[in-house]
């Protein structure tokens, strides 16, 4: 009992999973966005720090270079050799930003910045007050070794990953917290059904047994109709009861797999529901060939019962319930109200009911899905509003 309860309630519903997934996706995106912004801010700060460290050195180079230009200016044009230094490359530009002479490897210059990184180089621009040789701007260029960048990326990856993991776990906890009220109400409903199921068994068995025992031949037509109605109602309750007991008790039982004659079982179950079908003036259409399946008879019966019961319940008056059977494939179709396309993915969720005009708890198709998943079978639902539904079962 406890095991069955845990199985039914601890697992997340599809809709619950979807909400959880949506929330987590949104949350993770937000976390990534925030981490990316922080990483970008950190990167920029570290870059500025590195440049400010470099600035002092480059300023010294520019100062030395300006002194050399001053000397060259005085001796120009007897001397024409541009001053060179192994520690850096340089260029001189006039006030109109026209190159006077350049030794730079990277020719793109940002005159509006004092120090910046471009390509694999760092540029430092010093503006002169005395324009030696017409020089307004001295550009000092050194190679950027990129070691600082590697260290920054390592830090970003390590701390970013840690923060991401932490926030993801926190988000998961938060999502579970938000979903808890919904989960609790499902648990409550589940427990209520389990408790009430037991109380249904005795009176239901008594009703069905007594109906079977009644001699309808000696009855008045009027009474026979009334008895039929009682029979239909009792069988509907009985199907529901079987579903509920299956959910609460039987699904944990050991499987007793055997080869089942599917054709015979379908005919038998169709006959069982015949009185229900007659009440809606439905007709059966059989197209059955011999087929077998190796599985637990109780479980396969639950699948067939639920599919037939739905095909009858959601049919129109004077409609048709059809059965097509070949080895490995069973199609049960109806000419009923149909299911909206966007609702189809949710019809196997427990307690999901799209039509409240018919009774039920919404557990039937959930049972069907559990069983076919257990036996690795395939189920496909094709439906058109007001035309009908076609359930295709493959094994």
């Amino acid at each position, binding site marked *: 009992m406890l095991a069955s309860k845990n199985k039914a309630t601890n697992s997340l519903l599809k809709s619950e999973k979807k909400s959880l997934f949506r929330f987590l996706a949104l949350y993770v995106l937000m976390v990534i966005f925030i981490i990316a912004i922080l990483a970008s801010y950190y990167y920029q700060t570290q870059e500025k720090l590195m440049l400010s460290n470099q600035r002092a050195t480059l300023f010294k180079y520019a100062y030395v270079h300006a002194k050399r230009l001053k000397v060259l200016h005085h001796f120009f044009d007897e001397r024409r050799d541009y001053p060179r230094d192994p520690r850096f490359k340089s260029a001189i530009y006039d006030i109109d930003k026209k190159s006077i002479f350049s030794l730079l490897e990277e020719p793109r210059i940002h005159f509006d910045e004092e120090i910046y990184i471009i390509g694999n180089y760092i540029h430092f621009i010093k503006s002169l007050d005395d*324009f030696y040789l017409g020089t307004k701007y001295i550009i000092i260029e050194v190679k950027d070794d990129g070691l600082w960048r590697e260290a920054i990326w390592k830090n970003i990856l390590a701390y970013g990953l840690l923060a991401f993991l932490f926030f993801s776990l926190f988000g998961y906890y938060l999502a579970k917290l938000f979903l808890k009220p919904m989960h609790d109400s499902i648990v409550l409903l589940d427990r209520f059904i389990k408790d009430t199921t037991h109380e249904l068994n005795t009176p239901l068995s008594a009703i069905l047994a007594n109906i079977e025992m009644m001699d309808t031949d000696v009855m008045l037509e009027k009474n026979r109709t009334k008895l039929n109605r009682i029979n239909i109602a009792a069988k509907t309750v009985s199907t529901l009861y079987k579903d509920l007991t299956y959910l609460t008790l039987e699904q944990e039982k050991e499987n007793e797999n055997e080869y089942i004659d599917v054709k015979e079982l379908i005919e038998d179950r169709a006959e069982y529901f015949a009185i229900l079908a007659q009440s809606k003036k439905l007709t059966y259409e059989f197209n059955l060939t011999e087929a077998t399946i190796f599985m637990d008879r109780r479980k396969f019966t639950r699948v067939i019962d639920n599919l037939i019961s739905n095909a009858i319940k959601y049919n129109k008056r004077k409609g048709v319930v059809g059965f097509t059977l070949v080895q490995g494939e069973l199609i049960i179709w109806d000419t009923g109200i149909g299911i909206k396309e966007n609702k189809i993915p949710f019809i196997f969720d427990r307690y999901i009911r799209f039509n409240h005009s018919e009774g039920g708890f919404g557990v039937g198709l959930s049972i069907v899905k559990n069983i076919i998943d257990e036996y690795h079978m395939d189920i496909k639902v094709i439906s058109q509003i007001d035309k009908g539904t076609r359930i295709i079962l493959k094994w």
Partner: protein
Amino acid sequence: MVKKILIMIHLVSSIYAENAFERNCVSCHQKLPASLQEMFKRYLLIYSSESNVKAGIKHYLKYPSKDISRMSDLFIETYGIKKKTSLSDDELDDIVDSYWDKYKVFGKLK
């Protein structure tokens, strides 16, 4: 044919400008202790770019004054301020262009 004529006109005008520079500037400046090269560097030190240097020289030639001269006080006291030019704007432009081309730094450093 038209191309040849244009080239000829350009050559002739260049030679004329060169001659005008020699005639109007070099003839007097070669008597002074400060060379035209030195004076050019003084303009460069203040004005930096081609357009600024040319504008500065042209302005001084048209409106010579002690206040805006690039030369030292001692030089001015000794040799005085030059007379206001009598050349037209076009002639001045040609002469200043020749002066720039002769002493510019562009293309000379190595």
